[in-house]
C-alpha cells in the first residue's frame, strides 16, 4: 500500500496542498520516477534523495519507486518537496516509524548530506496549510520565523533529516531542539521580533529619516501631502539635488503596515525568494527602485511561471522610478493598468497568476536633457525640453497628481541649514490624515484614500467657497488647466485640508496645491509651436 505524506505548493501568492504518495514495486529494475507534473527541480529531487538516504545511513530501495504528487493535473515547482518525498519513501520501506504522520505537512529542500535547506514561499504554504486543517508543519530552520508568523498552526523547525526522523518517532522534543537554537540565535543577534502587536520602532529602518534631508522643506511638504492622500509623485530636479535620497525616505512616513498588509507583503517577497533567512513578517513598507533598463516583464511580472514583478514587490510600499524619461515607453505604459486596478494578472503557458500591486508611485526625472533647467548652466532649447518631457506618455502623467521641482542645493550653505522635519513627526500627521480618510470612505470598498476619489465623490467632499473658486479659476485660466487637472487639484486640496484636520477646503489648501504643478507651469512657459 502506498504511503501518503502532506506537503504544500505555491501558485501565485497562494498555496495549495500536495499529497506525496510513495510506492515501491517489487521485481522491477531499480529506478525512481516522480510524477504529477513536476518541474526540473522536482525531477532532480530523486538524486538528492538518493544521496541523502545514503549519507544518513538508510538504504535506498532496491525496487522501482514511484513518487506521485497529487493533484496530478496541477503543475508544481520548487525544491521544497524533498523532505516530504524522503519521509514518504523511508516510511514506505519501513525504515522509519513516525507517529501521527497525517498531522504534519512537510516543507524543505534536502542537501546531499541530509541537512535541510531553506526554501521560498513558506509563508504562503503555511497559511494554506492552516486553512486545510493541517495541525503542524515541518519547515526548514531558517524559515521558522516566517512560518511562526502564522498563528493557529504548530511550527516544527528542523535542521536535518535525522532530526526530523527522531522528532517524528517521538524520540526528541522539538521545542527543546528549538530552545537550544533560539539562545544560539539571540547571541548572534539576528532574532526577529515576530509579535506584530507590539509595533515598536514604528517599523522602519532606523538609518533612514527625513531629518537627514536639508533645505528641501517645500518638497517634503509635497511628499507628505502625497503620502497622506495616496497621491503619486513626480520629482523634477537637476542631478545630485537629492531626489533619490528623498524617495528612499518616503516609506518612513507612510502609515505603519497593518498585520494584513504585512502578511501580503511578506508572502510576495517569500515566493520571490527575496526574504532573508531568519526573517519573520516584514514590518517595513517595501521600497523598490528598478533601474531604467528594466524589462516589461520584470516590472509587471512574468517569466514562464508568471512570477511577481516590481509592481507587486512594491505592494503596500513605494515604487520609485528614477530617470523616468529613460524608461522605454512600452515599459512605462504597462504601468497604467496596475496603477488603476491595484492588481496585475499575468498569464503564461505555465499558469495565470494574479498579484496585488497597490503601490505609491514615485518618479524622478531631470527637467531637461542636460538636467539643469532652469539654471544658467542649461543650454537646452525649449523644443528639446518639450521633446524630452514628451517621452513620458500622457496617460502616465495623467496619473501623477503631484509634480514638484526639487530646488538646487548648495553644499556650503547646507551646513547652516536645519532640517525641519523628522520622519516620525511627518508620519504622525500622515496617519492622522489617513484616519480621516478611512472614516470618510468606510462605506466604499473601492476607495480608501483621497487620490482614488471619483468625480461624484469630489463634488460631495471637495466643496469650495467663493474665494477658493476664484483663486482656482484664475490659475486655471493662466495655465489652461483641463477639467481633469482641476479634479486632481481638488483631490489634493482635500488631502491638504485633511492634513490639518480641517473640515472644508481652505484658501491655503488651494495655494499649497497650486504649488504642486511645477511641470505644467514650467512646460507652459516654453516658447514652442505646440
Amino acid at each position, binding site marked *: 500500500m502506498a504511503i501518503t505524506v502532506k506537503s504544500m505548493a505555491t501558485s501565485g501568492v497562494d498555496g495549495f496542498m500536495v499529497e506525496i504518495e510513495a510506492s515501491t514495486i517489487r521485481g522491477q529494475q531499480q529506478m525512481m520516477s516522480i510524477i504529477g507534473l513536476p518541474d526540473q527541480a522536482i525531477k532532480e529531487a530523486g538524486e538528492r534523495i538518493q544521496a541523502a538516504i545514503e549519507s544518513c545511513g538508510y538504504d535506498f530501495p532496491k525496487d522501482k519507486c514511484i513518487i506521485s504528487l497529487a493533484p496530478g493535473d496541477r503543475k508544481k515547482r520548487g525544491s521544497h518537496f524533498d523532505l516530504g518525498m524522503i519521509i514518504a519513501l523511508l516510511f514506505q520501506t519501513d525504515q522509519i516509524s513516525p507517529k501521527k504522520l497525517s498531522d504534519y505537512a512537510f516543507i524543505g529542500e534536502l542537501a546531499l548530506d541530509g541537512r535541510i535547506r531553506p526554501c521560498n514561499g513558506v509563508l504562503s504554504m503555511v497559511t494554506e496549510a492552516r486553512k486545510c486543517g493541517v495541525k503542524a508543519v515541518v519547515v526548514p530552520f531558517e524559515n521558522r520565523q516566517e512560518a511562526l508568523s502564522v498563528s493557529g498552526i504548530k511550527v516544527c523547525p528542523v535542521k536535518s533529516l535525522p532530526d526530523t526522523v527522531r522528532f517524528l518517532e517521538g524520540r526528541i522534543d522539538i521545542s527543546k531542539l528549538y530552545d537550544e537554537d533560539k539562545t544560539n540565535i539571540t547571541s548572534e543577534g539576528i532574532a526577529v521580533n515576530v509579535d506584530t502587536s507590539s509595533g515598536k520602532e514604528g517599523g522602519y529602518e532606523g538609518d533612514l529619516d527625513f531629518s537627514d534631508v536639508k533645505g528641501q522643506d517645500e518638497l517634503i511638504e509635497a511628499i507628505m501631502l502625497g503620502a497622506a492622500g495616496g497621491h503619486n509623485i513626480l520629482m523634477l530636479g537637476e542631478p545630485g539635488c537629492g531626489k533619490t535620497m528623498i524617495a528612499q525616505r518616503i516609506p518612513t512616513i507612510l502609515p505603519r503596515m497593518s498585520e494584513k498588509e504585512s502578511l501580503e507583503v511578506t508572502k510576495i517577497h517569500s515566493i520571490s525568494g527575496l526574504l532573508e533567512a531568519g526573517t519573520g513578517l516584514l514590518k517595513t513598507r517595501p521600497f523598490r527602485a528598478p533601474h531604467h533598463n528594466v524589462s516589461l516583464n520584470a516590472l509587471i511580472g512574468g517569466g514562464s511561471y508568471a512570477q511577481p514583478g516590481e509592481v507587486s514587490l512594491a505592494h503596500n510600499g513605494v515604487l520609485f522610478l528614477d530617470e523616468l524619461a529613460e524608461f522605454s515607453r512600452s515599459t512605462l505604459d504597462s504601468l497604467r493598468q496596475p496603477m488603476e486596478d491595484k492588481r496585475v494578472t499575468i498569464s503564461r503557458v505555465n499558469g495565470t497568476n494574479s498579484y496585488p500591486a497597490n503601490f505609491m508611485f514615485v518618479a524622478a526625472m531631470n527637467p531637461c536633457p542636460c538636467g539643469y533647467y532652469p539654471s*544658467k548652466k542649461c*543650454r537646452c*532649447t*525649449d*523644443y*528639446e525640453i*518639450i*521633446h524630452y518631457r514628451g517621452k513620458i506618455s500622457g496617460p502616465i502623467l495623467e496619473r501623477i497628481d503631484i509634480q514638484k521641482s526639487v530646488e538646487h542645493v548648495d553644499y556650503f550653505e547646507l551646513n547652516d541649514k536645519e532640517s525641519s522635519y523628522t520622519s516620525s513627526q511627518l508620519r504622525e500627521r500622515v496617519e492622522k490624515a489617513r484616519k480621516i480618510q478611512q472614516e470618510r470612505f468606510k462605506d466604499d470598498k473601492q476607495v480608501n484614500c483621497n487620490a482614488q476619489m471619483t468625480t461624484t465623490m469630489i463634488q460631495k467632499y471637495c466643496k469650495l467657497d467663493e474665494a477658493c473658486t476664484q483663486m482656482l479659476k484664475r490659475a486655471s485660466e493662466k495655465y489652461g488647466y483641463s477639467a481633469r487637472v482641476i479634479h486632481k487639484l481638488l483631490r489634493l486640496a482635500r488631502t491638504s485640508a485633511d492634513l490639518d484636520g480641517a473640515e472644508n477646503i481652505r484658501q491655503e489648501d488651494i495655494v499649497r496645491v497650486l504649488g504642486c504643478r511645477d511641470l505644467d507651469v514650467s512646460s507652459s512657459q516654453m*516658447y*514652442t*509651436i*505646440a
Partner: protein
Amino acid sequence: MTDEENKIIKYIMLTQIKGLGPITQNALLDLFGSVEECFEAGCEDIMRADISNIIGRKRTISFVEQRDEVSIRNRSEQVLKDAESSGIRIVVREDADFPKRFKNLTDMPILLYVKGNLKINGYRESAGIVGSRRCSQEGKIRAIDIALEAVKNDIAIISGMAKGIDSYAHTAAIKSEGYTIAVLGNGADICYPKEHDKLYSAIAEQGCIVSEYPPGTQPRQYYFPKRNRIIAALSDSLYVIDAGRNSGTESTVEYARRYGKLVLM
C-alpha cells in the same frame, strides 16, 4: 510628359551631373540662354565656343559626356516623382517666384525644392536671424524680440530651422503670424532636428521650407555651411545672436558680407 515637366527634369539633370557646381550650372545657363539649349547644343558648338575661360575645359568635357546619360535622366525623373509625392514644388531659375535676391550672385542654386508658399519676392525687406544652437536665455529673448519686431514691420524672417536661435526666430514669426522661410541643409521633406516636427509643419503651412537638396537627402554636416549662403542671400539684413567663434554661424556672416548684406551682431 509635359513641356513644363521636361524643363524641370532638365534643370534637375543639370544639378545631378557630377563635377558641376552651382557656379558652373549658372554659367552654362547664362551662356546658352535656356536649359533646353544646354542639352541641345551640338557637341562641336560647345567645344568650339570659347567658354574655357568661363567654365574650364575639363568641366565642359565632363558636362558633354554626362548630359545624355540615361542614368542621370532616370535619377532626375525619380527626384521629380519623389518631390511630387512629398508635396514639394521645384522652383527653377527662370520661374517668376524664384528669389530675385539671387540675381547677380553667381553661386546660387539654379533650382529650389520648396515646401509651402515661396513668396519672398513679395516682401520688400527680409531679415535673417541666425545664431547659436546652444543659446543662452538672453539670446533666446533677443531672437524672439527681433523676430516679433520684424514681423510687425512686415519683414520676412529667414533662418535655418536649427536648434536654438533659429528655432526661436521661426517660432516667434509663426506665433505672430508673420512670414518665415526655413532653409534646410537636407531634403525639404525631412525634419531635422526631429523635435522640430511641429515647427516644421507650421512653417510649411504658414511660411515655406526651402532646400537646394533633392527630397530624401539626409542631413550631412558639410551641407549646412553651404545652405548658409542661401540664408545670407535671402536676407537683406542678418542678425547674429550668441554665435561663438568658429561656429557655423560664422560662415553665414562671411557669405552675408561677401554679398554686401547688412550684418548686425
